[in-house]
């Protein structure tokens, strides 16, 4: 009985710790998270604007039970009172991740304010290759289907 309560309190503690860790994900939602501090060089001041995505989760499980007494042992214990063998176990796990990428640069200069977009060529190239590959694959399948 004591073991069960110990396991339960331990599991609750771990779950609280993980829930606190997940709360840290919410720091990505703070308004200042996407804009950097202004950096000044000469007459120009630059602020970077980034996109942020963060996610995480956790889970836990507990189980208790009594082990069935094997038939060969039943005869041995028949004289005395049978002692039930109780046992239990539990586990807690979690995971998370975050990503960010610059979207634009805000430049404040003598001519005024300009917003310059940041283009991620690698991402675009990857998207292009994926789309092109999918199109080729679908076209091949369509041709094969039309030949039949």
């Amino acid at each position, binding site marked *: 009985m004591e073991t069960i309560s110990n396991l339960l309190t331990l599991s609750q503690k771990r779950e609280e710790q993980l829930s606190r860790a*997940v709360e840290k*994900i*919410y720091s*990505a*939602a*703070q*308004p*200042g*998270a*996407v*804009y950097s501090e*202004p950096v*000044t060089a*000469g*007459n120009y*001041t630059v*602020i970077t*604007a*980034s*996109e*942020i*995505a*963060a*996610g*995480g*989760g*956790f*889970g836990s499980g507990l189980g208790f039970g009594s082990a069935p007494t094997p038939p060969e042992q039943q005869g041995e214990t028949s004289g005395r009172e049978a002692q039930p063998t109780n046992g239990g176990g539990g586990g807690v796990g*979690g995971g*998370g991740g975050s990503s960010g*990428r610059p*979207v*634009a640069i*805000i430049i*404040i200069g*003598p001519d*005024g*304010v300009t*917003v310059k*977009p*940041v*283009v*991620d060529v690698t*991402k*675009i190239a990857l*998207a*292009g290759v994926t*789309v*092109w590959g*999918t*199109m080729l694959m*679908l*076209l091949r399948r*369509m041709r094969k289907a*039309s030949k039949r």
Partner: protein
Amino acid sequence: MQEHGSISHANQGMAKGVDMRGSNDLVQWQKASVRSVVVHDLTLTPQSQVLTVRFPWGAFIWHRPTAVQVEQNGRVEMLPIVDLTRLIQLGLVGLGVVVITVISFVQLARRKEKVS
């Protein structure tokens, strides 16, 4: 009036003007304004959007910048922040879908012609 090249925060501390859309316990779609920054004689107020999905066992957050409000001599101008990378990616995917749809329609029409 600020000195040239100097930066100061007009609103110290917390974010201002938080507008919640579609707000409930599970999904939150918020618009937020970051504290204003004063550079030269310009007051800049960056704005952003936050999507928060809460689960009992975790959370997901997507935060993106949307625009910068520029105020100069009482004149307010809104400069949108365009995510060009995402636009091009979506454009490529859209183009692929359109091309596939057109080709499949053409092939379907040819098959019907052959049958008739």
